[in-house]
């Protein structure tokens, strides 16, 4: 049997095309598939419920003073929530210090609402037994900066110092394993097990990492705040526990936020 040259050519082309298609198919990496999974479920983010709860907490009178948080100044004036997360951490004149979002919420919950500080800081993170109000409030506030450009300032001398100290904490090797943040987060294209690690010395990595927190963690069934993220990193570094909204955590947050400046904030995020 003789096959015409044209049909031979078509056959070769078809085989080549299918081979390429197969090659392209097998080119999809594990990272790609994880990204695909994230996109598919991004519409159904349970952090939305934390946002709703946070909004209610912001507007409802509470605490011994029976006051709402609507006079709380998060950096853009009393009661302004829209866009404030793009400029946090920042220096606040009334407290004389640099504060991140959770620290500032603590200030307002204690001074405006009269809630004792210990009552909030004893259990500041969500647990299966109890949801944390300050965590829900933080989730609500960050949601009001979604889609807006991060623009954290280091103009004030205290902000500049916070950044410098934060950078040193990032590189601070200690504990029985000699780990610092930099041990995992200062090299590009490495991963721990199958978890890709952002390199905070590279703008693109820092931006995508920072802009996705706080986030709902599917594996934990809870929304996790930024102070929680720092807390859990230190746990895995084999450090002792950082005190909630302590200067160490705020300075470190300042360093990380500044490294992500310019990114469009995408939180609250959704993670596995």
């Amino acid at each position: 049997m003789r096959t015409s040259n044209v049909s031979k050519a078509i056959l070769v082309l078809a085989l080549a095309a299918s081979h390429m298609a197969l090659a392209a198919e097998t080119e999809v990496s594990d990272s790609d598939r994880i990204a695909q999974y994230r996109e598919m479920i991004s519409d159904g983010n349970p952090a939305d419920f934390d946002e709703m709860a946070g909004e209610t907490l912001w507007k409802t009178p509470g605490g011994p003073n029976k006051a709402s948080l609507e006079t709380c100044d998060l950096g853009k004036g009393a009661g302004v929530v829209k866009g404030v997360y793009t400029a946090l951490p920042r220096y606040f004149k009334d407290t004389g210090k640099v504060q991140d979002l959770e620290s500032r919420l603590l200030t307002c919950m204690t001074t405006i609402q009269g809630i004792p500080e210990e009552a909030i800081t004893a259990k500041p993170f969500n647990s299966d037994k109890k949801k944390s109000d300050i965590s829900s409030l933080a989730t609500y506030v960050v949601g009001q900066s979604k889609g807006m450009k991060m623009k954290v300032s280091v103009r004030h001398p205290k902000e500049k110092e916070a950044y410098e100290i934060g950078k040193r904490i990032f590189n601070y090797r200690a504990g029985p394993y000699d780990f610092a943040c930099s041990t995992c987060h200062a090299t590009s294209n490495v991963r721990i097990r199958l978890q890709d690690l952002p390199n905070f010395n590279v703008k693109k990595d820092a931006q995508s990492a920072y802009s996705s927190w706080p986030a709902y963690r599917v594996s934990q069934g809870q929304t996790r705040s930024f102070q929680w993220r720092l807390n859990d990193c230190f746990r895995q570094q084999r450090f002792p526990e950082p005190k909630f909204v302590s200067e160490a955590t705020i300075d470190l947050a300042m360093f990380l936020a500044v490294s992500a400046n310019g990114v469009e904030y995408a939180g609250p995020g959704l993670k596995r």
Partner: protein
Amino acid sequence: MNAKWMIGMVASVSLAVLAMPVQAAKADAALDAKTAEIVKRDFRDKGIAKADRVIQDELQAKCSQYLDKLPPKLKLKLETEQAESLKFPADGNMMGDWKAGEKLAQDGSGMTWSDKADKPAGGNCYNCHRLSTKEISYGTIGPSLMNYGKIRGNGEDIQRHVYGHIYNAKAYNACANMPRFGYRGVLTEANIKDLVALLLDPESPVNK
């Protein structure tokens, strides 16, 4: 504006410029000191993780200060000091059981504040390294150790090299990312022997 004035200006500007690195170094040192103060104050005991863990030894402080890129003399000094801590098994037998080694390598628990004091720590190996040819869930922070024994053999020299590395990696590279598992009492002598076997035993999945 005369020549004297010009010379005076140039002199003071030069002096100022020369003084800048000194000023910067002073400012850096002040910030380093302040950072250590803040860290000491802002971390507290939790579970088995005691607050004094944040006090740096010389090696940790220098690696932090130089962002892991030590001046050569200092690097050598620290590596020499770390090498003094190396403790090899008294009976000279460094190969244990690779099956136990694989279990240890897969175990990433230990030493955190959520770990119990009476539970032995794992080796944490797969978090950073590729090991068994069959395990796909491996990290890439450290070099691949797949086929380690197959490539390098398993003579006494290699056994000593592997054992020493797990005992105190900083003796070989002062600012290595790898923890000092033996020196800091994270892993026992028996544990390390099992890990040596994992890497070097021809029957180990690392070499098959």
